């Protein structure tokens, strides 16, 4: 099976190891991974900040870059949700029938990483070994937009040596919210601090999510508070076959 990696600008620039982990896991499972190098950003930040018109050329770029790819995979639930939820509206806003059609065609081919594993690839146990206490944080877009539900937890439960810890009120937002984090810093940090307290209460050594944007926020708070808890993307847990955290 051939899978085109939609890395997202955020992961490309800030979390390269997540992309490497996706490639490792998929190749281990026998996939052929390709990386269209013309890809840049899906436009989520512009669209969510009120710059919808500026996001339209990025929508166009995305559908062109990935036009020929039968299967597109991304380690970001919010960028996957951007394609599914916002692209149709942006195409409509642009009044571009051709773009609307292209978006309709490409959207079902875009899979968040855990969706690809559990759906088209049909695997739950990817042969990972990760002997740590891990808490799973369901990112808002994983939970309410993509509706991943128990999916990522099923993958984590199949990991050898991994002990799952529960975060109280796990489904409440960590306070990231893109530009919300800097436009409303006090509220964002108040939300984060409650999340950090719940993480401490879980007894986890690392917090795991299917979206690094939450992990930038949570990791930033854990680091500032010197709480001794790490963050790791789901793909990196699943890629791990050795012992220590990656």
């Amino acid at each position: 099976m051939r899978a085109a990696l939609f890395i997202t600008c955020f992961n490309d620039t800030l979390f390269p190891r997540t992309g490497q982990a996706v490639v490792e896991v998929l190749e281990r499972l026998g996939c052929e991974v390709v990386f269209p190098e013309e890809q840049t950003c899906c436009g989520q930040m512009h669209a969510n900040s009120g710059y919808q018109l500026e996001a339209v050329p990025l929508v166009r770029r995305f559908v062109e870059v990935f036009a020929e790819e039968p299967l597109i995979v991304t380690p970001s639930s919010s960028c996957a949700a951007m394609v599914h939820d916002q692209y149709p509206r942006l195409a409509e806003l642009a009044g571009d029938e051709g773009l609307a059609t292209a978006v309709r065609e490409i959207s079902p081919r875009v899979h968040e990483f855990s969706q690809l594993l559990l759906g088209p690839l049909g695997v739950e146990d990817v042969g990972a070994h990760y002997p740590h206490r891990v808490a799973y944080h369901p990112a808002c877009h994983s939970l309410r937009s993509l509706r991943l539900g128990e999916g990522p937890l099923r993958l984590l439960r199949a990991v050898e040596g991994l002990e799952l810890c529960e975060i109280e009120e796990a489904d409440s937002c960590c306070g990231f919210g893109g530009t919300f984090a800097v436009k409303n810093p006090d509220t964002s940090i108040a939300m984060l601090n409650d999340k950090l307290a719940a993480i401490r209460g879980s007894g986890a050594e690392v917090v795991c999510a299917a979206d690094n944007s939450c992990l930038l926020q949570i990791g930033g708070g854990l680091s500032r508070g010197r709480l001794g808890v790490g963050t790791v993307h789901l793909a990196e847990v699943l890629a791990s076959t050795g012992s220590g955290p990656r």
Partner: protein
Amino acid sequence: VSFEQTPFPAAAAGALADHQLRANLRRATRTIRDRRAEAVGEMPDWEELRSAGERIKRTAIRHLDRHLEELERSIERAGGTVHWASSGEQAIEVVAAVARSHGTDEVIKVKSLATDEIGLNEGLARRGIGAIETDLAELIVQLAGDLPSHILVPAIHRNRAEIRDILSAGLGVEGLGDRPAELAEAARRHLRSKFLSVPVGVSGANFAVAETGTICVVESEGNGRMCTTLPRALVTVVGIEKVLPRFRDLEVMLQLLPRSSTGERMNPYTSLWTGVTPGDGPEELHVVLLDAGRTDVLADPIGRDALHCIRCSACLNVCPVYERVGGHAYRSVYPGPIGAILTPQLERMEEGRTLPWASSLCGACYEVCPVKIDIPSLLVHLRGRVVREREGSARVDPERMAMRALARTFSSRRRYEAAQRAGRIAQWPFVRGEKIERLPGPLAAWTEGRDMRPLPPRTFRNWWRSR
């Protein structure tokens, strides 16, 4: 009701510093949230009900002109009088005129958001007429000279001890305890005499049925039933978006509303009245159909979905932002996620322009909305309206410049990769070991309470090319 206009981030910062408020809100929102989840969880057809609710409101709003004219005909046929008020002031004038014609300088009120929105109590006070709130929480807010902070529970920001002090001072009751039964008893004694003597009642409406002219108010305390049955005259102020086409639409709405709102299967009191009936209830019924900015909201084909709201407040109770900052930070009668999309539109985008950003877009509000208003999408849409309106001004806007520059960067692979390289160079003065503890400019807001992760030496694409 009047709120000073402060941008949301600043107002929120003030509220966040109040630890008593944080504790009160946390406790109260969790209680209502859990109760709602239970009441909704026992309904096997909840999703179908939500879809039915959405369809009813969508139809009602799409053909609002026809339904409103039908409502007027139905009410007048049943012996009521209809007044059209394009502004809050016009609505206040109608209430004042009815009070004057009954020779009273007092009216009793059922809890009503529409009347809070237009500042009815203050408007009547300016005309020498006192408005007495009869809902317990509204009474507390009124006695404390406070502002409501929640759609359903306007005194949610107060705890029991604070409420005891307010009632004790406001009603002149000495030695009052803080048990709910004692607090309610003190209010009841005060209100009974008013119910029996004041000749004019004022209410809002949860629903107004075009087909029959029936007005519906749901409530918990029975004060509403008193206000709508005991006085000689009743004035009902109805926002024009409250119209339902058919009587049978109530079947859906009266299931959706109490479960979403108080987490009850059914609210204790549902009052329905149609015109006047000789010898039974008020002899005079006035219905004020209030616009106050709603027609402007209708003009926005996406934003108009905010008019579907049935004021259940479920979105406030699940909102992580509301739970932290409370209602006052929104500077409006309509706080929380629904307020963030309704207030700026009702104010013709002249006030509340920071409200569409008062959300992390987590989507919890959309999930609980009984009429499926896609609040996150509306927030994003309104952000776009604010940004585009700001473009009209000649002022230099650093955010717009940065966003334009980024869009240009992302439009070419070469520029994007150059920016990645430049970022790695530009960050070096700020990196301390494995982290960045202070960033300059607008990003300083990030490092207020969080460390930043430095850009690693190699991007993913560098790694890809080198493998």
